[in-house]
């Protein structure tokens, strides 16, 4: 009953195929960076490309782009909590 009202977007096949191509290309780039044996580049790959890939999946495949603001905030909170957990634990390990 509320389908039309709440998820108006039927995104076509083409968008998703484009996203998939982007994901595969990014994977290639990530692997390419890591086998150059330049630690800085590999780290850049880990810290930038991987989250980019994850956000592509979140926003398009998981439809987050078309969801309400409330849901987007919740996702942000969940990820923030995870990052804070990791950060606070590092406050121990980095200074031991």
């Amino acid at each position: 009953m509320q389908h039309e009202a709440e998820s108006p977007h039927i995104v076509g096949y083409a968008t998703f195929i484009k996203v998939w191509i982007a994901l595969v290309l990014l994977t290639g780039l990530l692997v390419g960076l890591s086998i150059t044996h330049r630690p800085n580049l590999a780290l850049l790959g880990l810290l930038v490309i991987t989250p980019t890939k994850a956000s592509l999946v979140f926003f398009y495949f998981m439809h987050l782009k078309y969801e309400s603001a409330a849901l987007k905030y919740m996702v942000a909170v969940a990820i923030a909590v995870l990052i804070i957990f990791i950060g606070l634990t590092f406050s121990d390990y980095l200074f031991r």
Partner: protein
Amino acid sequence: MSAPAEPLAAEPAGEHVGEHRDYAGAKLGMWLFVFTELILFGGLFVAYGMYRSMHAHDFHKASGELNLVLGVINTVVLLTSSLTMVLSIVAIRLQRKVQSMFFLACTMLLGAVFLVNKFFEWRAKFHHGIFPGSDHLMARPPGERLFFGLYFGMTGLHGLHVTIGVVVMSVMLAFLARDKIRHNDFIKLENTGLYWHLVDVIWIFLLPLFYLAA
């Protein structure tokens, strides 16, 4: 966007308790479950992060022993399965039932391929005497033991999630066949999709952490 008052009256009067159908509610519930899964793996990522910061050298060395080619192939397999999953949802919304079933079956097949690859990868490690608690592993430096402990723990838990996903999808396939999932009632399929994409996201992180740490 619906008007703010709309979702509040989600339950039509007279309908029996427990049989109301609330599309946005069901999706919210699934998202919350996705959060718990993220945090569940998050605990393991914390462990990985701490140990890698303590044993950076050992981690680099041990990572070199993993089969990078197989890891990348599995990544592409899983990414493709995510694509077919989402296409299956688009198809059912466009009322193309057979197409939707085809895409879902593809997703299951790719999930199975992933597991088979994983099986061979693990078997090769076992043949080299690398498994938790093995004498061979215990003879190596602590960082490498931890690396493989985390490797088996995290990919194992992930593999378990893939297996559960394939089982759930087989149920969804039956629902599709019996028209229990339709173009105007596809929340079960969509929630299965959310779960499957989450499994994909976790693999996206596992790839650089394990296979590309060398």
